[in-house]
């Protein structure tokens, strides 16, 4: 077992373990902080896969943006003196059965499928190449994504704006 295998097992354990905590935790704050570790674990897996740019993007956008936004959501939709911030759990056992079947089906199929592996891409710095691809073959999706972001942010601001009293 080589060093990178051990790192993979460690990162996989962190990722899946904290995702489980996120799903099972009774408190919303615990869920949010467990999600933080899941995002860190996924960023580490990206690094292990040689996706350095994507790992940095994951940290910046998921940890720095989306998680902070989710915490704002927690804080704004609960009374702040209500410290335990409990979240109800419904239909737990039926969902657990669904979870078990889903994971079993996925795992069996991942194991059985004869994956056609290509030459692969050995880990190497990717940022320059990603930039060239975005400005080249992927220019139209890139621009569409930027317009989507603009529209989504304006739309979000419009939705939460208080309407004037008629």
């Amino acid at each position, binding site marked *: 077992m080589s060093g990178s295998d051990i790192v993979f097992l460690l990162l996989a354990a962190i990722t899946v373990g904290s995702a489980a905590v996120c799903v099972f935790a009774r408190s919303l704050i615990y869920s949010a902080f467990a999600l933080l570790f899941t995002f860190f674990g996924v960023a580490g897996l990206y690094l292990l896969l040689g996706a350095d740019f994507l790992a940095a993007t994951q940290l910046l956008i998921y940890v720095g943006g989306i998680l902070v936004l989710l915490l704002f959501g927690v804080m704004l939709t609960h009374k702040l003196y209500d410290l335990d911030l409990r979240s109800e759990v419904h239909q737990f056992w039926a969902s657990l059965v669904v979870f078990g079947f889903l*994971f079993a089906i996925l795992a069996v199929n991942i194991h059985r499928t004869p994956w056609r592996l290509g030459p692969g891409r050995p880990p190497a710095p990717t940022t320059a190449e990603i930039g060239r691809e975005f400005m080249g073959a992927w220019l139209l999706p890139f621009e569409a994504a930027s317009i989507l972001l603009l529209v989504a*942010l304006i739309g979000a601001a419009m939705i939460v704006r208080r309407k004037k009293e008629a």
Partner: protein
Amino acid sequence: MIGLQHYLLVSAALFSLGILGVLTRRNAVNVLMGIELILNSANLNLVAFSRYGAGNLNGQLFAVFVIVIAAAEVAVALAIVLTLYRLRRTPNLDAADLLRG
């Protein structure tokens, strides 16, 4: 030796846990967390295929778009959750039944 299938297994676990979170929770913010888990698992798949597949960067480029969509999605979703909270004083999704006849 760690290969493609191990990454896919981690991703499958993340996906199933995300589905479990979406199914069991009534709190809208918690459901959003489950959706983030699902999107992350999809991204992990894309990056793993990019590493072990045809040897180009298309998987990673697609993952960047998924991250962009996730950011837009969470912004709009939180706006909707806040509006629901203002209307019903609860982040509980069962309260969002205004369209029921």
